[in-house]
């Protein structure tokens, strides 16, 4: 029983030290995790492309490649649509033009590892990463915000981490999206509003940038609201690099 008390007390002390020191222990843990994560990602890729599992995985790889190709085309179409909408907005609201300076950084952890909808990137305060900065995919969709910054590592929290809510604009209608993890979310919008799969979803909380596309709309005649499912047009788990903005809206 004494051991149980001692361990519980130790845990409390460690958390208190971390809190008082402004997250020093967290930063150390995250730096170590980023180093190990970066190495393991490289080792995994080396094994994957070495040909060891080629014969077993040929069909699976081909299937995956075709799926990735479809996803790429879909992402390009969505990005084109997003650019069109953005262009129209910029033409009418030139004063809202925003600074797009930032830095491309590698993702150094698996997005499946975190139970809190977070992931680590290989850049920190030394690379001018700021807390609360927006994190974008290569196609310009916002995936999250930087929540913790240490010297060469930062922790990014997904915009649609499970349980989080985001105010968004879906087909011109205001909606509150409930995050479901993996950059998926859903919202209830009045049934009269015309929403179709592929529509761009934007959010004022991230400077009016696109945060995803409508994947599916469920509507029943008896209901006053339609359920809109939103997703990123690209697979968040396959992201190797992300773009971190310098400015924080």
């Amino acid at each position, binding site marked *: 029983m004494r051991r149980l008390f001692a361990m519980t007390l130790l*845990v409390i002390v460690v*958390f208190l030290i*971390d809190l008082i020191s402004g997250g020093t222990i*967290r930063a150390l843990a995250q730096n170590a995790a980023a180093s*190990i994560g970066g190495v393991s990602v490289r080792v995994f890729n080396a094994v994957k492309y070495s040909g060891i599992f080629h014969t077993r995985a040929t069909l699976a790889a081909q299937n995956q490649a075709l799926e990735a190709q479809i996803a790429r085309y879909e992402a390009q179409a969505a990005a084109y649509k997003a650019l069109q909408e953005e262009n129209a907005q910029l033409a009418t609201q030139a004063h809202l033009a925003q600074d797009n300076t930032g830095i491309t950084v590698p993702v150094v952890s*698996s997005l*499946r590892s975190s139970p*809190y909808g977070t992931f680590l990137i290989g850049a920190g305060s030394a690379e001018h990463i700021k807390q609360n900065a927006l994190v974008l995919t290569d196609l310009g969709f916002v995936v999250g915000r930087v929540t*913790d910054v240490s010297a060469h590592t930062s922790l990014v929290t997904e915009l649609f981490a499970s349980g989080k809510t985001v105010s968004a604009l879906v087909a011109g209608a205001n909606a509150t999206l409930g995050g479901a993890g993996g950059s998926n979310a859903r919202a209830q919008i009045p049934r009269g509003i015309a929403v179709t799969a592929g529509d761009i979803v934007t959010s004022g909380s991230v400077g009016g940038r696109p945060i995803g596309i409508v994947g599916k709309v469920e509507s029943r005649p008896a209901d006053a609201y339609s359920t809109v499912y939103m997703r990123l047009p690209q697979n968040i788990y396959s992201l190797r690099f992300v773009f971190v903005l310098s400015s924080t809206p």
Partner: protein
Amino acid sequence: MRIVIALVGFAAIITGPWWIPLICMILLSARRIAPEAVIIGVLMDFVWQGSAVLAKAPFHGVPLFTLFGLALLWGLEPLRRRFLF
């Protein structure tokens, strides 16, 4: 066996899906008082839960894995005493 499970748990904090450390914590705590299970829980929270998250979103700020580790530590003690000692 205990060392292997602990090593798998520690490695999975960074490289595996989140449920592997969880299973390792349960397996480690089932038979004995296992400090490593609590350490895995603390590390999971320190690595993946941002301190800013703690301040801004109360629910996401709850260190779930640490609490689960402590719950295993205390909660399984009566069972361990009843069946294993």
